[in-house]
């Protein structure tokens, strides 16, 4: 053959050789690239018709190797349109390989297909049917269904069977067409040729699925035919053509049995009609070869599926029993498979095989294990739960690591579902955690903690056994977590052997042992941040449970002040401060956790599995968790919020004083950006704005921070709420931090009144549904810092010589700072020392300061130090005055001020309201 150097000159065989000869992937790519280029050129050139199908074949090979071959798609269509069989053959093959039903190009082939379906050459008809059956789209199915129908009536068996299978595809794509085919399908069942028969049976099966009418029609018209086919094929003497291991055509057997299942399902008459032949197949089929077992398997399925007589059912169950004890893994696998389905039909029969099934759970083959485990799970009931669980737990020890996760999940759900006694549940969970603690899912040990928290009589036992288990299996992550949590909560029960059960061996654990255990857990290299955080909390709690250990715990905690993990670092600093500085409140701070609400947890867990469902929230504001608080903490209701709003709206209608203090500045100050001049601001109205701002920096910026703050609590999406609370708490923490740094006493009351609200939120969140998953841990900094701030302010206000300063007024021109002084024993009376500073570059003359107070306050002004305020803050005027609050403790101090002065002879007047006095004045 004369070869054009630009055409793909090589033969297919040569190309395959060249590709196979490539030693590296790069070499192979080069060969492929060369060939592809040649094929492209050939495609674009005319006059290469004789090479087209060779090129297509090459392209298919290249496609099989995984290279892109889109450019060949049109070439397929051209080949299909060609006249000869060889071209068409390759064209259709390429069509099936390179294209599928989703490509638009496929529509272009519809016409060619239609012509080929009507072709006089049966082989070409066969090609077209094959392509249609393998890749036709719904549109093509609709267009070409009439042709296929016609071909179903053909005389040629090859055409007939292909047309039948093509119809299967058509009906799958367009179920509406089912009725057109049902008559033809039923008549095909009268054929003798097995190929036609099996195709027809499969078509009938598909029709039954696609249409109820077709199902009814076939029930009426072909059940006899089916029974006859099955009888013929199973009674036939040796037929070499269809023989598989001594059984005549097992494939046909199985397809017929399957169709019978569809017809017999829910139809007693049909089922009745099949009884005899099914019994015959079930009893007479040889079961020593795979083919025979395949038939038996299908037969059992059919018996289980139809309305069979009880005798037939017994037969089927017996076959299953034989399967289950078969040595062949494949057979055991299918036995487990059908048992799963049989369990709804006959639970007792399946229960009889429990022991064997349990053995299968321990099989080496993962496929069998998985089936068996699922089956065991279905078999568990109240009576057998204990022995079954014991078996599974025992096996856990030796199970494949890969399998442990599945196994623990199943054991845990079994124990949860069927546990009648908490003690038993506890013991099983303890074993699971000890043996496979690294493989259990998080909600398993969460649930365990909830249960322990609810079982007050078992808490002692739980903490002791967890402690003991931890000594032996400290490498199991979730065991460590649960143990650490319990030691933190119930440390004293561990040490004092509180609530000993009868059968429980006494153990001696000293306080330092308990701390050791937690410390060891913390230092385990495998412990993650969560575990370590839990250890820290446990240590903090132990510091209160065991005062003698306090010093040591303080040291352990202090070691982590420089931890690389921010979370741990922050936590340890906060905890350190609680241990060190707040002994008086520590014990109440570190009370035992309130009983966790089991119902809420379960609901939450259920909802967590359906991610979008909003978190469960009890209807009333009073949450179950709150009611159970042991020390009777009264939860402040919505009041703080109202107060907070009042603060800004009624009591303090401040505008003028805060002329320059925009909320934004203040926010920046709070966040420590602005830094130094916090003490210049601090008016209540501003603080409200801050709150707004603080809230609106949350993930979804809102106009009305406060309302949003509440609404998430009332059942918005979980994450939303958490983000809110998180951002709120974080920013509050920052607020507190700056408060503590700057010690502007004035800010404290706002913080205090502001904090209860988020706290409230957190409280309700955490108690109602421990769900929220809030990182309330972030709240602790506030705790610590807030305490700092408070202790500072308390000491300040208690002492004579303390003199907190507030910036009473600041504008662009003038700044007034009040130094406050209390006299011991006279809480009502406050001595104020005012300092006036000129912020402009011009001197103020004739400066007069006036103040007005509400009626319940008495004011006595001392003379000022002068009436000239030098420019640029180079000096200041001071003035002392005295206020007596007759309603001290009930109403806060408030003051209206007015400053008049002259700048270059011009009169100026400024006024404002001072309401940022610290509380208690």
């Amino acid at each position, binding site marked *: 053959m004369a070869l054009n150097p630009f055409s793909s000159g090589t033969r297919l065989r040569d190309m395959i050789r060249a590709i196979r000869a490539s030693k590296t992937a790069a070499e192979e790519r080069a060969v492929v690239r060369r060939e592809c280029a040649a094929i492209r050129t050939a495609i674009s050139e005319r006059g290469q018709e004789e090479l087209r199908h060779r090129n297509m074949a090459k392209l298919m090979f290249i496609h099989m190797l995984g290279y892109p071959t889109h450019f060949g798609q049109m070439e397929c269509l051209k080949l299909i349109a060609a006249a000869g069989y060889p071209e068409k053959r390759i064209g259709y093959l390429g069509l099936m390989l390179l294209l599928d039903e989703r490509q638009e190009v496929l529509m272009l082939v519809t016409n060619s297909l239609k012509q080929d379906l009507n072709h006089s050459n049966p082989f070409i008809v066969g090609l077209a049917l094959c392509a249609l059956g393998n890749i036709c789209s719904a549109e093509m199915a609709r267009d070409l269904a009439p042709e296929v129908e016609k071909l179903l009536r053909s005389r040629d068996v090859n055409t007939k069977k292909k047309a039948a299978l093509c119809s299967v595809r058509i009906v799958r794509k367009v179920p509406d067409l089912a009725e057109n085919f049902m008559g033809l399908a039923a008549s095909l069942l009268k054929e003798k040729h097995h190929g036609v028969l099996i195709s027809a049976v499969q078509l009938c099966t598909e029709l039954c699925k696609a249409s109820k009418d077709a199902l009814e029609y076939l029930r009426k018209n072909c059940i006899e035919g089916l029974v006859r086919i099955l009888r013929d094929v199973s009674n036939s003497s040796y037929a070499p053509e269809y023989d598989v291991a001594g059984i005549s055509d097992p494939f046909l057997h199985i397809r017929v049995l399957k169709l019978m299942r569809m017809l017999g399902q829910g139809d007693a008459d049909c089922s009745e009609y099949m009884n005899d032949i099914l019994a015959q197949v079930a009893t007479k089929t040889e079961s020593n070869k795979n083919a025979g077992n395949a038939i038996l398997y299908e037969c059992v399925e059919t018996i289980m599926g139809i309305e069979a007589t009880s005798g037939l059912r017994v037969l089927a169950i017996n076959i299953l029993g034989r399967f289950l004890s078969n040595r062949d893994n494949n057979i055991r696998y299918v036995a487990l498979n059908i048992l799963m389905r049989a369990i709804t039909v006959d639970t007792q029969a399946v229960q009889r095989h429990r022991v064997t099934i349990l053995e299968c759970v321990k099989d080496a083959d993962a496929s069998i294990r998985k089936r068996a485990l699922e089956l065991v799970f279905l078999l568990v009931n109240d009576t057998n739960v204990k022995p079954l669980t014991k078996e599974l737990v025992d096996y856990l020890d030796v199970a494949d690591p890969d399998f442990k996760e599945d196994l623990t999940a199943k054991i845990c759900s079994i124990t949860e579902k069927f546990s009648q006694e908490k003690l038993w549940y506890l013991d099983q969970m303890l074993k699971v955690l000890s043996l496979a603690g690294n493989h259990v899912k998080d909600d398993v040990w969460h649930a365990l903690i909830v249960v322990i928290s609810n079982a007050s009589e078992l808490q002692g036992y739980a903490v002791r056994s967890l402690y003991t288990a931890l000594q032996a299996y400290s490498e199991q992550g979730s065991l460590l977590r649960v143990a650490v949590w319990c030691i933190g909560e119930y440390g004293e029960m561990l040490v004092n052997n509180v609530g000993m059960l009868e059968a429980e061996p006494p153990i001696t654990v000293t306080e330092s042992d308990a701390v050791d255990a937690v410390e060891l857990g913390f230092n385990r290299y495998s412990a993650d941040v969560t575990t370590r955080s839990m250890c820290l909390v446990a240590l903090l709690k132990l510091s209160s449970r065991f005062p003698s250990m306090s010093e040591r715990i303080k040291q352990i905690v202090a070691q982590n002040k420089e931890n690389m993990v921010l979370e741990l670092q922050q936590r340890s600093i906060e905890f350190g401060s609680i241990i060190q500085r707040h002994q008086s409140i520590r014990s*109440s701070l570190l009370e035992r956790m309130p009983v966790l609400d089991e119902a809420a947890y379960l609901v939450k867990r259920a909802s967590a599995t359906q991610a979008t469902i909003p978190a469960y929230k009890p209807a009333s504001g009073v949450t179950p968790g709150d009611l159970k608080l042991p020390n009777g903490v009264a939860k402040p209701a919505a009041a703080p919020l109202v107060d907070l709003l009042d603060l800004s709206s009624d009591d303090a209608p401040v505008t003028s004083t805060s002329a320059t203090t925009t909320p934004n500045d203040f926010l920046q100050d709070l966040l420590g950006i602005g830094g130094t001049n916090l003490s210049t601001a601090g008016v209540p109205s501003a603080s409200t704005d801050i709150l707004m701002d603080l809230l609106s920096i949350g993930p979804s910026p809102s106009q009305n921070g406060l309302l949003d703050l509440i609404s998430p609590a009332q059942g918005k999406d979980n994450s939303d709420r958490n983000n809110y609370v998180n951002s709120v708490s974080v920013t509050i923490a920052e607020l507190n931090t700056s408060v503590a740094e700057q010690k502007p006493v004035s800010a404290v009351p706002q913080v205090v009144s502001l904090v209860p609200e988020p706290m409230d939120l957190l409280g309700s969140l955490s108690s109602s549904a421990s769900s929220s998953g809030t990182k309330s841990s972030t709240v602790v900094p506030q705790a610590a810092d807030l305490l700092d701030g408070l202790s500072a302010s*308390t000491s300040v206000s208690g002492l004579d010589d303390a003199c907190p300063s507030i910036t009473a007024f600041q504008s662009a021109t003038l700044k007034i700072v009040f130094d406050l002084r209390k006299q011991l024993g006279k809480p009502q009376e406050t001595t104020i020392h005012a300092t006036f500073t000129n912020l402009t570059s011009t001197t103020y003359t004739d400066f007069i300061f006036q103040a007005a107070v509400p009626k319940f306050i008495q004011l006595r002004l001392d003379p000022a130090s002068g009436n000239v305020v030098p420019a640029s803050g180079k000096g200041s005027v001071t003035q002392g005055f005295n206020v007596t609050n007759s309603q001290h403790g009930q109403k806060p101090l408030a003051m209206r001020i007015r400053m008049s002065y002259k700048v270059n002879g011009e009169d100026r007047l400024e006024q404002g309201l001072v309401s940022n006095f610290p509380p208690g004045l």
Partner: protein
Amino acid sequence: MILQYHTSEIIIFTENFLDNLLRGLVIEYFSVVRPDAAHPANATPADQETQTRLIAIPSQLPSSNLTTSQPSSSSPSMIRFILLQNRQGKTRLAKYYVPLEDSEKHKVEYEVHRLVVNRDPKFTNFVEFRTHKVIYRRYAGLFFSICVDITDNELVYLECIHLFVEILDHFFSNVCELDLVFNFHKVYLILDEFILAGELQETSKKAIIERMGELEKLD
């Protein structure tokens, strides 16, 4: 006195608050690690892995892809694909009866190979693959895999594989891998005579060989 009372009231208040917080804190400590939707950021790497895996499977290969867009409730119990791979994972034949993207096909081929290649010969010939089941059988260095519905009759597909191999063996008289490589288009042709639209077309070896003989003459 009143002042002190006042401040201490605040402290008591705060104390309760802290108390609550701390209680909250510890409660939260074990919900914070939950890998639920609310806390993707808090999920441990392993959690994330399982999550992505769970999510990824349908996106990689929507079950509707393997089950085809079937309007009726029951999925068709058809063959989804047939693979013929050697031990190195080279695909020698791949026939898909459901539409898949090329990239998905490659992924499927890779995954199926991984699944079957290391299994003990004593194990079952069935492995669960995504939402389906692969029935495979090894002949010398070649793995024949058929992917079917999870509830389908595994044993009969095992027989199918064997019948197909017998046909190939007969057609190429003592088939070996190289025959399949160089005559891949003929292998496809045989398969098209054996299985069509994911259903069995012919169960007689003799009939298929005869048919192939007729087709060969036309080429």
